[in-house]
């Protein structure tokens, strides 16, 4: 009976993160595919791959912070690709979608602020751009100070 319990518990633990693990794998694969497409100059295709990633349902087992990190990173990349394609309005939408997931003091929010600032700037919205750059600077400088003094977690 003891062996049955050991197997049951091991199986349950192994099965707990199944869907979450698959989601993480698929997200990493999407970025690898996007890398390849960008190297080939196929930015539009790369954007489609990343759009598919952000529109995929996220398993409930994924912790909220990890979910936000993965999605904000993907949105930042989408915004960057849209800016390279000279589509600042689209870049703005991606940056807004990313920041809409919540803003904490980390590199993902800082990147999104920078990219949104760049999109505003391209659209001639200088005041909004300045606000985003300032917010990005505050976060990045605080994180830099922490990193230089040996701290920092995210």
């Amino acid at each position, binding site marked *: 009976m003891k062996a*049955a319990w050991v197997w049951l518990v091991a199986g349950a633990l192994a099965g707990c993160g199944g869907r979450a693990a698959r989601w993480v794998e698929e997200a990493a694969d999407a970025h690898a595919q996007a890398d390849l497409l960008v190297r080939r100059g196929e930015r539009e295709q790369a954007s489609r791959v990343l759009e598919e990633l952000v529109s995929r349902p996220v398993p409930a087992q994924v912790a909220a912070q990890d979910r936000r990190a993965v999605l904000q990173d993907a949105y930042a990349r989408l915004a960057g690709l849209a800016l390279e394609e000279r589509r600042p309005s689209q870049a703005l939408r991606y940056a807004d979608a990313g920041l809409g997931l919540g803003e904490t003091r980390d590199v993902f929010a800082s990147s999104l602020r*920078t990219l949104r600032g760049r999109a505003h700037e391209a659209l001639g919205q200088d005041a909004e751009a300045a606000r985003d750059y300032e917010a990005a600077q505050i976060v990045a400088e605080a994180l830099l100070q922490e990193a230089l003094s040996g701290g920092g*977690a995210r």
Partner: protein
Amino acid sequence: MTSEERPPTEAEAREADLLAHALEDPARPGRDVAAVDDALGTAWLLRASKSAELSELRARAVLKRAWPGRPRWLNPTPGAMAALGAAAAVAAILSLLPRGPAKLPPPPVPLLRAQVAAARPGAQRALAPLEAEMDAHRERLYGALARAYGTRR
């Protein structure tokens, strides 16, 4: 006309009748079945082979003999079955609950410097180093997530 097609003789009919009665009512005392002894034995053997099923006790004995070291947990009691069911339900519920966050890698100094440099008006060229640093950080990010969520990589 062959011997099989010929009608039975009186003696044969008597023996058949005797055999039928002996099979229907074997316990009747005083009956002389010596004449049909061989036929009766064959009939009993046939009947026994038709009803030759293993009783539960006999099945257990056969199983015990065939697999003497069979572990006890392969004969689960109702209590054990209920416990297994409860454990399966708990496992199913656990699998739906969100986990604690992964320990993500801290952003390295070059990435943060690139972010500070890029967050300025007109710094178009500063985006390329930021992207390169973010690509490297992404590798570390997914490495940490893979460790936390147990991917097969």
